[in-house]
């Protein structure tokens, strides 16, 4: 079959990867400082970190950014190395599914901590 290319595609995901990197770069030091300032990190202390709603939301945003970043990176790897469409398409779909599952799981874990 003929090789075709598409115009005006690819910028959105490239930008999403940068944006998600910024979210992670902002969250990680902020979270470390927050955890360090919050006292001893035993099990109750660790749970208490995620008691405020803002902490839950920020944590979920971080996980969402991480998974989006990972999926875009995986797509890059697939375009580079996995050339057969019959392999690439299911691979990207399965990872998207798995990552969405991870997101739901992370939400469940975060909101299992009582406020």
């Amino acid at each position, binding site marked *: 079959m003929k090789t075709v290319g598409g115009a005006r595609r690819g*910028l959105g995901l490239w930008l999403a990867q940068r944006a998600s990197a910024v979210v992670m770069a902002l969250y990680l030091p902020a979270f470390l400082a927050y955890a360090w300032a919050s006292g001893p990190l035993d099990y109750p202390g660790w749970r208490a970190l995620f008691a405020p709603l803002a902490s839950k939301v920020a944590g979920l945003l971080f996980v969402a950014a991480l998974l989006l970043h990972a999926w875009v990176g995986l797509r890059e790897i697939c375009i580079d190395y996995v050339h057969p469409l019959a392999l690439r398409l299911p691979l990207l779909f399965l990872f998207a599914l798995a990552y969405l599952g991870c997101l739901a799981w992370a939400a469940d874990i975060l909101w299992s901590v009582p406020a």
Partner: protein
Amino acid sequence: MRFRIYRYDPESGARPRMQDYEIAFDPAGKKVLDALIAIKEQQDESLAFRRSCREGVCGSDGLNINGVNSLACVTALAGLKEPIEIRPLPRLAVIRDLVVDMGQFYRHYRAVKPYLINLDPEPESERLQSPAQRAELDGLYECILCGCCTTACPSFWWNPDKFLGPAALLQAYRFVADSRDQAADERLDYLEDPYRLFRCHGIMNCVEVCPKGLNPTAAIGKIKTLLVKRSL
């Protein structure tokens, strides 16, 4: 001096091989191309390689020398580890010995329309630029299309038919940036593609090998910045 040189003769039917040469040659002040010419003259006239200006202007003797893409005519012999291993540029089809088929490379170059597109009537003298507009083209127009950068790029190795490669992208930006060109939007339309542009992951192999000291990664970054600017 000792050399190991890639040999391939399509007419013989034999597989490509590395051939050793030893030649009495004073490396002081000499370049790799001088040694190749000496080998061809004194030892093996069947050795095939391209060369023309022999001073880093024409860009025809791009080779892989001790694992690094460079122009044989500007690469000093002194300091190179022996045996000096000379191979054709990676990922291009070999026509014979060190001569590669540049067809794919030129197709990408043609695809970015490397010429001014300006529909205004031609002025009587010339299309003028301010010094600042002209300065925008510095670091872009100097490319000699030797192919060292594009063939050093893994993204080109994996998708040579679809990824334009650093040389063509540098040239694409050279015309996007030109104040006299009127087709920047169409050019950006063409470039905005997961393969043509976005295979570049910014690893900067191109910058490392460019014999003219140019920075295709920076040009690609500027293309991406323009794409973001016009979409937001």
